[in-house]
Structure formats: C-alpha cells, structure tokens
C-alpha cells in the first residue's frame, strides 16, 4: 500500500503561488509513488539496503552522475526518474514499461523537475497544463497511484483557463482539514519520539526512524498547505461580504455606525490579534495579513486593546470615546 500522506494541490486561482503549489506537490508525488513502487519490488529480492548497494555500484562505474556521490533519497524524483531512464541495466526497469518512449517520457518529466526547481521561468497555467499532461501520461503508463488524481488536476486547470473560477471551499470544511492534519501530526510526533528512544537502543530501529522522520516532514508540509487553503478561502469571503463603504475612510476617522463583528484583542508584543472565543490567533485563519494589520493598528492603539473586526475585514476600535476606523485587514 502506498502511504503517501499528501495529495496534489488543486489550484484555487490562477495566481503564481497556487501554480507553484500544484507543480511542487505533483512532482513530489511522482518521486514518492515511484520510490514506493521500487522499494516494494526490490526489498524482497535484494534486502533493505538495496538502495545503498545500487548507489555504490553506480559510484564505482565509469563517470558516475553527481547524485550517486551522496546518500540517495528514495522519494527524490531526480533519482526515481533518471536511474532507470539513463541506465539500461537498472533493476528498477523491471517494474516499468519497457519501451524507449516511456524512458523518454521519464527524461522529459525529470527535465521538468529540473527546470522548475532551478526557477527557469515564472510558471503559467499553459505551462502547468503541459507539465500535468506529461505527468499524467507517466502515471498512467507506470500505473502509479497519482494517476487517480491527475484527472482532477487537468479539469481544474481547464476551468481556470476558461475563467470559471471554482467556488471557494467552505471555510469550516477547510478548518476541519487543518484540525485533522494537526491531529495526524501530533500522532506522528508521538511515534517519532518513541522511535528516537528505540533507535538509541538498537540499530535495527534506525530504518523505522528514518521512515518516520520523512513522513513527519511530509505531514508538516501538508498542514501548511491546508492552512494556506483556509487563508485563501477567508480572503475570498471577506472580499464578498457586504459592509460599510470604507473606501473613503482613513485610519483614525470615526466609524459611521456602531460596529458589528468579531471582538478581538490586539496584542502589541505578539503582533497579532487574539480571538478569545475561538482560542486562536487571527493569523492562523487569515495568514500574514493579520500580523501586518496588527503592526499598523498598533500605531493607533499603542497599548493594544479590543478591536472589532467586521465581516469585510475592517478594524474598528474605541479611540477615546469614539468608534474609529483603524484600517483594512487586507491593505495598508
């Protein structure tokens, strides 16, 4: 069974950050799925140290590639793609289609990885679509688990190209996803702590420790992605919320009506806003804009205090005895 703990990120918008997210998770998934496929095949016949044995064999050969000069990582797409594509005697070819066209495809995807991680150019939707088509072909032909995700990726890219922006995912559902990720991370941390203790006692536990360390890192990445999705969804919700027209107000101006919204506490030293009802910092929900806003609003409220945050993201607080506009969460 493939225990890959993350899914390919579906872009919610056509902005560069979302495209980066999709490219990065897609290429990581290629490495992860291929690595597991190889390991499942090699371990029973060549033992648990097959990867290091293969590395040493390549390192002793004629003009070895630089990647064989250091410890190999089974989830690295560069190794998983280039080893079978470049070496006709590679034992990994046994679990792959044996056609020259397939090895060319592996080379192409390896070149995509290289170009993307060396920041050859800024990504666009067209480029992402080309990459996704190549990866989909590779996943289909090699029968990788990620083939089941590529359909959704290509559909989403098509929607974005046609201007049909998908509706924002429900914030509550995304928050639940973050909580699930946090819970998984907590369980993984407990297992990792246990494995580190065990590894001190026995060398055999080292392999399990390495596996858990990698999974722990992947789960941290997944949690970050989930948090970013929540922040993006919250941003869209604020943009569409009806509220007082604050476009003509400047920070410090009186707010025209009694403010309605969430009471938050501006913490000047923490540089964030605290929601005592949710027991959470605002930056958890909306990202770094909360930190930037807290910094700006501290100029008007140097000792902190209660701030009412309206649905559209306007900060309102009592300055003296007057409800006053502090500024918008999203802009300075």
């Amino acid at each position, binding site marked *: 069974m493939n225990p890959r703990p993350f899914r390919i990120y579906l872009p919610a918008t056509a902005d560069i950050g979302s495209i980066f997210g999709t490219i990065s998770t897609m290429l990581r998934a290629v490495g992860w799925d291929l690595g597991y496929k190889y390991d499942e095949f090699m371990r029973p016949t060549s033992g648990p140290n097959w990867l290091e044995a293969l590395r040493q064999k390549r390192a002793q050969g004629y003009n070895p590639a630089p990647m064989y000069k250091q410890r190999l990582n089974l989830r690295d797409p560069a190794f998983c793609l280039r080893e079978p594509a470049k070496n006709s005697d590679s034992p990994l070819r046994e679990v792959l289609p044996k056609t020259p066209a397939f090895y060319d495809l592996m080379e192409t995807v390896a070149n995509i990885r290289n170009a993307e991680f060396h920041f050859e150019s800024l990504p666009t939707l067209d480029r992402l679509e080309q990459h996704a088509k190549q990866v989909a072909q590779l996943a289909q032909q090699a029968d990788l688990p990620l083939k089941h995700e590529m359909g959704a990726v290509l559909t989403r890219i098509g929607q974005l190209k046609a201007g049909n922006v998908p509706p924002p995912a429900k914030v509550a559902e995304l928050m639940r996803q973050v909580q699930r990720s946090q819970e998984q991370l907590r369980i993984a*941390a407990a297992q990792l*702590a246990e494995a580190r*203790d065990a590894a001190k006692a026995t060398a055999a536990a080292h392999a399990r420790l390495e596996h858990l360390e990698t999974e722990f890192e992947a789960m941290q990445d997944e949690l970050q992605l989930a948090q970013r999705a929540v922040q993006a969804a919250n941003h869209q919700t604020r943009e569409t919320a009806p509220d007082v027209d604050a476009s003509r107000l400047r920070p410090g101006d009186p707010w025209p009506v009694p403010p309605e919204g969430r009471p938050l506490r501006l913490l000047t030293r923490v540089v964030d806003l605290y929601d005592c009802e949710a027991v959470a*910092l605002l930056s958890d929900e909306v990202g770094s804009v909360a*930190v930037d806003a807290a910094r700006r609003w501290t100029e008007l409220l140097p000792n902190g205090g209660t701030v009412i945050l309206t649905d559209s993201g306007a900060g309102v607080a009592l300055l003296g005895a007057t409800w006053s506009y502090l500024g918008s969460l999203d802009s300075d």
Partner: protein
Amino acid sequence: MSRFQIGPAVLMVPEHAGTEVETTDMGGNPHKAIEVAGVVAAGEVLLEITHQRWEGGGQCVVTSRVDSPPAYDRVVNRLRMGILAHDDGTDVCELAIAKWDHKNPFGSMRQATMADLDAPLDGSASAILVEAGALDLGLRSEVLADEGRRRNYLCARFPSGNAVGPLAAFVMTRVVPMLREQGVSA
C-alpha cells in the same frame, strides 16, 4: 502559525521573523535581541510569553498576564528559562520543573525526570517537544556529554533560532505546573 496543546494550555505563536528589541540577560547585561512573542491560553488565563535570542544565547519569559487572575503575577518576569547556543549550531534548554510551596510562594526550578514532566500534561512531554521541533532530548550527560554537576538534568536541543521549541519547553516546565497549582484542568 504554530499551535500546540500542552496539557491544559494552548500555545500559539504567529509566524513572523520577530521584532528587534533591547533586553537584559539574567546577569543584567544589555543585549540587542530578536524577539518572538506568543500567547498561552487556558480557560480564563491568557499569558503573553516571549522568546528572545541574542548572540550566544537567549531566554524565554512571561511578559504579561494580560487579563488573567493576579496569582499569575508570580510567573511574570520570573522563572525565566535560559537558552544556550551550543557549538554544533543548536540551541539547548534545560528541562527543570517549577515548584511552589508555602515557604516558597514565588517558586523555583527543580530537577525533573521525564515522568515529572509527563505528569502535569497527562501525556508525553517528549512527543510535544518533538512536535515543536526538538532534535534530541535526554540527560545533559547524554545530549551534551556534560560531566559537570548538572549532568543528570534533562535538556532538549532545537535547531538554532527556533523560537517555537523553547517556548513549548518553557510552557511545559513553568506555565503548566502553575496552571495545575491554580487548579486549571484541561
């Protein structure tokens, strides 16, 4: 943002590069430091805590009890936790535990075992520290090859400049025992 459940408390630390401040170390010497502050919440209690890191070391301290009951004044600017920058580029914190009694109402730090740390958490201290980024934890003699008088004290090693890990250790060893002493449950 980083968020950790530590026994009855929730530690929250926003993600930003920190603020440059001037501070004094435990010997009273002034330093330019980078400060990352977070909050600890548990029921009606809300404490502001900071991690200050200067060249060669740092400290964690409660800076404000915000609207918490006055009893929590006993941890404000007291029971600080020192951070030692180790030669291998990591930060090391000692894991002693705060204790109070009628003779010593302001508390002091006492040597602890892992079981002492686990007890007020109703869980595993090592799991929380690993979640917060600990690279290693154990006796100073094991982690630092310390042969001095404190070799049997527990300590944790974190990547250099990691504010969240030391703050989690600080909450675990000072704030949570204080919450328990005040009768706060999960």
